[in-house]
């Protein structure tokens, strides 16, 4: 039965192909040293919609390649196409193009042009899968494109200065894009999105990027999940966006003076849950962000778990675990319009007499000392000294400088599983 069904399906597919290519038989063009066709440029000139171009293993110093037909570019034994550090490599201007199994190297850095190894320019239905990218200015660049898939690519660069480095995956005015299973290492921003709608960013590993692991602006209604952002010099930045869903991500080891696990700027109605923030200089930094729900996250061993800047309002922090952070929450205002409830705080020193799992005394996550450090950084050297503990205790009893309402009235007694 199964066999028959799949045959029928294949026939239908073939039929469909016939229809879509105006009854011209699709052909396969093989490019290689030992083939009749030696260059990709040549193959691209010969191809028609529906063709498959097979590129055999080898080194192809070809740049400024443009795809104008609906074809598949298929690498056999990982051929290398090199931009020789000068030009862009491949630009796709046709819909439904698939690119896979190819190693793109050395797309040239430029201060004027966004030179990319692969650029999708105003197309739909393209798929860039299982490719490798090394030392390109931009890795994959999508402009005004819809319904594309960027999957399982390895995108690595090793520039030291931001000016010589473009983004790993760059999206501009895109819709319905799936970015999944990619590794991005050493670019300026790992993944960059601007004016993107309804896209899914999942299972990517973004590390050692010179700026942000993930950077997005004006990109509403996107979902980010199961990604790992590690050792990026400024962590992840999310700006000017509504209704973002960020969940099950890992933000780890993002250190430095201007470094965040997650930077939220002008974010409203977002939902941030089940994420882990471990050993970042700052877990989440919120600025001008309202009505976000932050729950079931783990904040562990961060310098600051949360820096809540004063123009943020109506955010809800619930059921999070705060473990071993140097500072749990800090803020630059004495008033607070956000809610903290039912979190577990490892610094909590209260008690639970009625054994309902909730501490009877409220927890004050903002310490006087964290406010001092905020204004005078060298004082950080006194962290955890006896004198500072005395100050904190005194402030807890008689709050003068810390916001009285920034308390968790229902602190959990044990780690929330």
């Amino acid at each position: 039965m199964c066999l028959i069904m799949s045959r029928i399906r294949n026939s239908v597919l073939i039929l469909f192909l016939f229809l879509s290519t105006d009854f011209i038989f699709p052909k396969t063009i093989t490019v290689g040293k030992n083939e009749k066709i030696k260059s990709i440029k040549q193959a691209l000139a010969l191809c028609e919609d529906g063709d498959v171009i097979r590129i055999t293993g080898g080194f192809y110093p070809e740049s400024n390649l443009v795809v104008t037909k609906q074809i598949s570019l298929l690498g056999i034994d990982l051929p290398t196409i090199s931009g020789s550090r000068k030009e862009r490599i491949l630009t796709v201007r046709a819909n439904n193009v698939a690119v896979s199994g190819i190693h793109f190297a050395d797309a040239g850095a430029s201060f004027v042009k966004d030179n990319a190894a692969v650029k999708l320019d105003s197309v739909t239905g393209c798929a860039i899968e299982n490719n490798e990218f090394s030392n390109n200015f931009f890795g994959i660049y999508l402009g005004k494109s819809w319904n594309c898939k960027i999957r399982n690519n390895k995108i690595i660069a090793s520039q030291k200065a931001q000016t010589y480095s473009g983004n790993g995956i760059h999206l501009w005015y895109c819709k319905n894009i799936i970015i999944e299973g990619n590794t991005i290492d050493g670019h300026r921003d790992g993944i960059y999105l601007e004016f993107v709608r309804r896209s899914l960013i999942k299972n990517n590993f973004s590390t050692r990027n010179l700026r942000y692991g993930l950077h997005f602006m004006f990109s509403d209604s996107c979902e980010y999940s199961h990604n790992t952002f590690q050792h990026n010099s400024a962590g992840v930045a999310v700006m000017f966006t509504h209704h973002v869903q960020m969940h099950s991500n890992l933000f780890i080891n993002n250190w430095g003076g201007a470094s965040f696990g997650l930077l939220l700027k002008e974010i409203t109605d977002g939902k941030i849950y089940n994420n882990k923030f471990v050993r970042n200089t700052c877990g989440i930094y919120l600025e001008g962000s309202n009505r976000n729900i932050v729950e079931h996250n783990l904040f562990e061993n961060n310098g600051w778990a949360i820096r809540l800047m004063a123009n943020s309002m109506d955010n809800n922090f619930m059921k999070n675990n705060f473990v071993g952070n140097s500072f749990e929450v800090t803020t630059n205002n004495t008033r607070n319009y956000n809610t903290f409830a039912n979190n577990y705080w490892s610094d909590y020193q209260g008690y639970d007499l009625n054994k309902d799992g909730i501490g009877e005394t409220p927890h004050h996550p903002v310490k006087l000392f964290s406010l001092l450090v905020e204004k005078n950084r060298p004082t950080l050297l006194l962290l955890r000294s006896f004198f500072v503990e005395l100050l904190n205790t005194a402030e807890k009893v008689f709050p003068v400088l810390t916001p009285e309402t920034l308390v968790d009235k229902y602190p959990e007694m044990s780690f929330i599983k």
Partner: protein
Amino acid sequence: MNALKSIIKYQVHDTFRSKWLVVYTLFFVVLSYGLLSFTNDSNKVILSLLNINMIVIPLTSLIFGTIYLYNNRDYIILILSQPINRKTLFVGLYLGLSVPMVLSFLLGTGLPILIYIRNFKEAGTVLLNLFVGGVFETFIFVSVSFLIATMNENKMKGLGLAIFLWLFFTALYDGLILITLQVLREYPLEIPSIIFTILNPIDLSRLLVILRFDISALMGYTGAVFNQFLGSGFGMIVSIISLAVWCVVPLFFGLKTFSRKDF
């Protein structure tokens, strides 16, 4: 050398049999075990133990050290009437007190931690630094207390000075740093603040722990100077050397005073 060995041997014997050392050890055991059974959070345990390093060890070392020399005055006279170098006796007494105290600390806090070692898998270096800090604190403050007791004939004056120094190093000193940093915050005070911190052994042993514990995450936030100092092995080496200097210098001056002193 033989005389030194004998003095140390019998002083250690004597100290180990004393009730207060048993109490001191039990204090560590109860506290450390209590903390560990109360929470699975190794960070909490480490921070509480850090507080002990900073408060209890300096206080007990200073007080036990001064009382020890005052109470043994007649015995010191007896030994000094023997053919023995004064320096030998002084060093012997010093090690005879500090070594059992160090062992008591290591044993008292270490044993319960060994039982719960599973909880500390990732905290190896922090734990090591914590113990290094505690050991140094003991050696340093026994050394300081010996200097106090040899310089002051008057017991009450000596004890008072010991308590004052404890208060000074645990709290007042940091308060002064904080006030200085606040008042002069317009100036680049990174290097001076590092130097001030190094000058206080309690701050130093605290740094040893937070270097591994917090600063890794806070690093960079504080600027390039801190980054360079705290983030590198260099900071660690400077801290250890400075702690060692803190052991040796008071001991050296104690030794000099003790050698010249009339009994």
